[in-house]
């Protein structure tokens, strides 16, 4: 009964979504507040009804109702409760329902926004309704998660054990909030192009309206990608955290476009300039989101992350992507030349710096797009197969971003309209000097000596110091009495703190990524019980191996001790798990967190040691500063949240007070 309610709710949601689009369009054309209000109501109702459907699906998983095909294919009675719930979004159908839930949820939030002008809001609600209807129709007609099985099997086939992991239980919801949040930016951009207001005051206001949605989506996406990367790091057992895998790239493209959008929207908001460009990026971010959904789900790419693949549905997704993005960009091409420009600015100015930021972020996104799609295009065109992996991105993406990051700290120090490059340079002199010292120290201290890695460490330090220098400048640190500095600190808007945090977080990430990549040490060796292997300064000894029984798996569990000269010895457990339900084995990495470093231990297959005893292949990595790789994005996302909380952006709250 509950499952039928879910199926019904899903179809109802589709109907409501279509109504939302139609009524909002009619309301806009007739300028009828009544119709527009009805469309807003439909948007809110759609979100509620999709939530009911999603709840019904979770219920079916919780009670292991194997008469539902999706549950039978992805669950098992022995599975822990967290993964029964998480399995609801572990498959193609379920994750698509989650996509729809997030999309209609953001649609409802858009419908409740009080501050938008009538025309813009109604057009945006119509666009959002159309997007929702397309994805709901795709779900209902090709990927209905409520399809029944008759006869129902007694037991399910279980969720892919790689996905039975806490990080992965929370990764998709956060990632989707990011991906799909950009749909509101898309709708607002389409609406702005339709309304095409000629008056110059429209675009600054539009920049302010679109920015909170972009900020929220970008912050969600940052944490979502970070969790996915962390999952790959400790679940795949390869010692790495980013493989330039097509699915990773698919999530990275909207992130890059979203980051560009955030910055470009600031220029539009403050100066009314770059209106067309900001609109373009708003369209691009969600287009990349849809492209990612298509790439991941269609199976056109091979990836270690793709778990819900179906070529036929891929064609439908391609049609949705082509239709919506095609129409939106056609609209853009038609309307963009008519957009009124904003204020003028000199090349050396805050606007100029943000333009350069956009230039490099866009080129970086294009690089990721090329690297991801090129093997497909080349194979289709000439039949030649190539692989594009980390070495390609190291030669293209990394230098592009390095130049962008080098320029970054100067941006916030330049004034709007016409900046003072000499002044900015002087204010960054201390940070620059410290950066050079740090890079030299890094070159001398880290073993082996690597000039490029030391330069990378300098770059990370430069970002952090540059962000701090900018804040110090704003609060007149050491140049005014302490009381004055404190007063200024209190007076700084949250948005300024948010920017400082986000930029410093980027620096923290760069430090972690550079040090981990440049100085990681790996060792692999068959070990019998009692033997040990050396990775850099760490000695890892295999103490004991035993068979343990988990809720739905059996595992060989190795207990290993990690010791270091002059430090405490610590125990880690590494497992090889066997899941009888699906016949798969997975590795559980043993992680010893040592300050900023990870000692990463993988227990492999049984092997013969050279003297003929029972042994296990043990691989050990020393990943220096690996913690920063995950800390950095968290700080960046926190910066985004702070900016979001800034009074100037809390539009709905202000409106409510006024009402």
């Amino acid at each position, binding site marked *: 009964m509950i499952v039928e309610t879910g199926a019904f709710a899903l179809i109802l949601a589709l109907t409501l979504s279509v109504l939302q689009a139609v009524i909002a369009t009619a309301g806009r054309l007739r300028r009828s507040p009544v119709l527009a209000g009805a469309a807003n109501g439909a948007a809110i109702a759609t979100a509620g009804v999709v939530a009911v459907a999603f709840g019904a699906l979770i219920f079916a998983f919780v009670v292991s109702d194997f008469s539902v095909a999706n549950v039978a294919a992805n669950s098992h009675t022995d599975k822990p409760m967290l993964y029964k719930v998480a399995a609801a979004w572990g498959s193609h159908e379920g994750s698509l329902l989650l996509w729809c839930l997030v999309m209609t949820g953001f649609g409802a939030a858009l419908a409740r926004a009080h501050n938008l002008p009538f025309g813009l809001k109604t057009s945006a609600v119509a666009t959002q309704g159309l997007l929702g209807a397309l994805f709901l129709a795709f779900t209902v007609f090709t990927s209905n998660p409520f399809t029944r099985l008759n006869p129902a099997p007694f037991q399910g086939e279980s969720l892919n054990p790689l996905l039975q992991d806490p990080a992965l239980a929370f990764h998709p919801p956060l990632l989707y909030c990011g991906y799909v949040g950009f749909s509101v930016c898309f709708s607002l951009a389409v609406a702005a192009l339709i309304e095409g207001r000629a008056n110059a005051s429209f675009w600054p206001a539009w920049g302010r309206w679109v920015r909170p949605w972009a900020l929220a989506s970008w912050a969600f996406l940052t944490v979502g990608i970070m969790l996915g990367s962390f999952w790959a790091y400790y679940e795949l057992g390869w010692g790495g955290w980013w493989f330039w895998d097509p699915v990773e790239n698919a999530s990275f493209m909207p992130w890059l476009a979203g980051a560009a959008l955030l910055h470009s929207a600031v220029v539009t908001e403050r100066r009314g300039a770059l209106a067309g460009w900001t609109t373009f990026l708003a369209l691009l971010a969600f287009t990349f989101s849809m492209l990612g959904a298509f790439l991941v789900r269609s199976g056109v790419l091979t990836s270690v992350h793709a778990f819900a693949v179906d070529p036929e549905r891929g064609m439908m997704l391609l049609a949705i992507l082509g239709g919506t993005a095609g129409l939106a960009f056609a609209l853009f091409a038609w309307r963009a030349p008519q957009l009124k420009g904003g204020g003028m600015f000199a090349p050396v100015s805050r606007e100029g710096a943000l333009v350069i930021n956009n230039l490099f972020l866009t080129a970086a996104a294009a690089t990721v797009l090329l690297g991801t799609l090129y093997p497909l295009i080349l194979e289709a065109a000439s039949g030649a197969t190539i692989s594009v992996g980390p070495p*390609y991105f190291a030669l293209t993406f990394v230098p592009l971003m390095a130049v962008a990051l080098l320029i970054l700290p100067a941006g916030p120090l330049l004034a709007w309209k016409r900046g003072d490059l000499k002044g900015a340079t002087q204010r960054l002199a201390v940070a620059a000097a410290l950066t050079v010292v740090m890079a030299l120290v890094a070159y001398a201290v880290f073993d082996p000596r690597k000039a490029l890695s030391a330069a990378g460490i300098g770059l990370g330090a430069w970002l952090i110091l540059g962000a701090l220098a900018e804040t110090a400048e704003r609060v007149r640190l050491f140049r005014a009495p302490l009381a004055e500095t404190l007063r200024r600190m209190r007076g700084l808007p949250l948005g300024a703190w948010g920017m400082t945090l986000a930029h410093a977080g980027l620096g923290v990430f760069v430090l972690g990524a550079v040090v981990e990549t440049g100085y990681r040490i790996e060792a692999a060796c068959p070990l019998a019980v009692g033997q040990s292997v050396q990775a850099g300064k760490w000695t890892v000894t295999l103490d004991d191996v035993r068979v343990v029984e988990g809720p739905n798996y059996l595992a060989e569990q190795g207990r290993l001790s990690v010791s270091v000269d002059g430090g405490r010895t610590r125990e880690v457990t590494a497992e090889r798990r066997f899941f009888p339900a699906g016949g798969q084995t997975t590795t559980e990495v043993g992680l010893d967190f040592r300050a900023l470093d990870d000692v990463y231990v993988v227990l492999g297959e049984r092997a013969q040691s050279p003297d003929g005893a029972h042994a296990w292949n043990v691989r050990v990595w020393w990943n220096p500063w690996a913690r920063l790789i995950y800390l950095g994005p968290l700080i960046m996302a926190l910066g985004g949240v702070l900016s979001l909380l800034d009074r100037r952006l809390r539009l709905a709250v202000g409106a409510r007070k006024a009402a």
Partner: protein
Amino acid sequence: MRRALLIALAAVGLMAAEPPPAPDRPLPDAAQEARAQRLFDDIRCVVCQHEAIADSPAGIAADMRGLVRDQIAAGRTDKAIREDLVRRYGDFVLFKPPVRIGTWLLWFGPFAVLLAVGAALLAFTRRKKTETAPLSPEEEARLADILAAGQLRRDPDAKRSDD
């Protein structure tokens, strides 16, 4: 009973499902082994999904690692080893695609995009100089009105018929 069955299944799964590949034998010379490890990162396991042979547990990846080590031990250069692998498995086997006519767009595309977007943004900012008219006092007042924090309200011309 169930437990015994599970253990039996696990024994099959953990040990006998596939014959474990022979453990890697690192080269005795540390410098040669380091060269081998660097090569492993750039060579794709031909049966896996986007995995380097450095990471892949597949049997063929172990064979390929052995092959690379043998060739290094035999004194061949990295370039010769890569060429040999490409002859055997095609360009697919290298994570760094070759630079030839078919991949020019791939290799030089990013920098072309940088130039193209730069030109587009330059055009955007140039064009504006001729078109921008300063805001009228009335428009300035409306802008301040819209942007003023805490005073946001419905668009005053929402019901205007010529909107």
